[in-house]
């Protein structure tokens, strides 16, 4: 049993992949929090709590839900939009929910516009610029999501959630697997359920640059 835990950073100049530190992916019906396998129900509550605690809770939808390449994707996109609307309804004054897409995986040079997009090759720039302290990836191809999650853990203090349609992500601090419209909306229900019961953090995300 590993002692390693997947926690908000900034962790290291080059943080390890959590899988290489003995963190396992959840089985169907499970999720993980900080690398510890938990029943999925517990993860909904914790993800909702993290969103409501954050100064800038942000959803990062990726290409798999941004483009209507099949009926399921279109329905998931609508569910993501609904989740964002719920988040806006439920936060307190001073909190600033955001919805920032990861439209593709092309490295953007000379510089990404961090106000309008996030990129897997330098996701920390978007996190830093917008002072995002909790984010959720959804609809991002697994390899690119892991790339991003590791870089974010390395250089920022942002709490990361993955709503993955496949087997989940060890490199997120909290990960669901087998994401569906129902699961996205269920997270929305939990945010509504916890509305007003969670005290927002007073400070925004730390960065390795500011440390």
């Amino acid at each position, binding site marked *: 049993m590993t002692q390693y835990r997947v926690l908000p950073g900034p962790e290291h100049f*080059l943080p*390890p*992949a*959590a*899988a*290489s530190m003995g963190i*396992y*992916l959840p089985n169907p019906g499970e999720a993980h929090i900080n690398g510890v396998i938990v029943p999925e129900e517990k993860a909904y509550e914790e993800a909702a709590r993290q969103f409501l605690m954050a100064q800038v809770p942000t959803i990062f939808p990726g*290409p798999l839900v941004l483009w209507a390449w099949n009926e399921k994707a279109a329905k998931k996109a609508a569910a993501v939009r609904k989740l964002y609307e719920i988040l806006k309804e439920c936060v307190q004054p001073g909190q600033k929910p955001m919805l920032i897409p990861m439209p*593709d*995986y*092309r*490295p953007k*040079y000379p510089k990404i516009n961090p106000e309008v997009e996030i990129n*897997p*090759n*330098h996701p920390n720039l978007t996190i830093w610029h917008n002072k995002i302290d909790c984010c959720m990836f959804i609809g991002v*191809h*697994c*390899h*690119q999501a*892991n*790339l991003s999650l*590791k*870089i974010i853990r*390395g250089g920022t203090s942002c709490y990361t959630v993955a709503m993955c349609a*496949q*087997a*989940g992500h*060890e*490199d997120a601090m909290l990960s669901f697997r087998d994401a569906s419209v129902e699961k996205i909306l269920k997270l929305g229900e939990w945010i509504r359920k916890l509305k007003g019961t969670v005290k927002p953090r007073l400070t925004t995300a730390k960065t390795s640059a500011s440390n």
Partner: protein
Amino acid sequence: MAEIKSHIGTQNKKGQTYTDAWKMMHEAPRNPSFYTGSEVIKEALRRASCDVMIAYPITPQSEAAALIGELFAEGYIGDYFRGESEFAVMSQCAGAAFGGARVFTTTAGPGTMRAMENFPMWAGARLPIQMIVTCRGINSPLSIQPDTIEISYLLNTGMLVWHAETAQDFFDWILKGFMVSEEPEVHLPLALCCDGFFVTHTKDVVNLTPADMCLPPYDPYRSPVPCMDMECPPVRMMRDPFIMKSNYISYATHASWQQEIWAAIERSRKHTIKWINGLIDTENTDAEVVIVASGTAVSQGREAIRLLEDEGVRCGLVKVKSLRPWPGEEIREATKNAKHIFVPEFNVTGWLAKEIKATIPNSERVHAGPHVCGGMTMPPEIIVSEIKTALGLRSESLAGRGS
């Protein structure tokens, strides 16, 4: 998954039924057949719902590649051709896999070495290509004979690497290998190795699954990277700023990318354990003397153990089935009682012994040998002799024939 499940129970153009892979491999009746290893590769591929097979002739895999050509002629393979060279073959395999195909190839010895640049590229691009490696000598002067040295070069490519002992392993692991390497959180190429000639050209009884059942087709939409996206890494390779720039972000992206490949190998662990029933097999590991081996060295070790038992020496056996993922914990546990660990190998460097020494405590217990190479056989008697010598028992010379 829904897309895959929807195929189960339907038939392909050859009348084979797409069958749940677990049921096909574990519950379907088996038919004993007397085949060479090369014929077994063909029979496995008949059941693999393979889209594309590409190869270049090199001994000892040429026969398997030619037999798969017959499968293509019969309509079991989507496309099949001979590349211009091994390097071309592996690049063409990449192209087919980028396009969303289930891809299979076979190679050996210098061919493997010639194509080597492609293997880390496959892994980095998350292409679940299956490559059969029928190991042979690679050095000059030319040898086409069995020698497992080429496996050592594959161990750090980012590929999954399995080492089959028998033709039965080969049949089962070709089919099971697709199931492991195509898992979305794994999605890596598999080098399925065997000892050339000893396995490929030897006939054995192999229990085959029914020929009218086949694996479900590969679903490229479960891939962790987009299929054939010409604008994004990994397809867009050289013109891309993140390759060509020299700055911290570029380096960090590359580092994170490489870590992700090795993380994927770790993730393959639970699937590999499930499908091939553990990364190692063990027998009598409470003994003070244990042989740890892979490939046909396991068979020779097993025979040496039988000879030693006749002389009152009890000896355990560890068969290493998977080299990547590496069964570190399993080997530590299996060798915890051993005072002497022998690692017989068909190569000159003893790469398996080095891996084991780096894994276990008190590595002075490891006797790296006996080694043979260049096509030599490994009579069980030389393993016996090595063990008896280390234990201080009298051992007759095996080299002085004719005197």
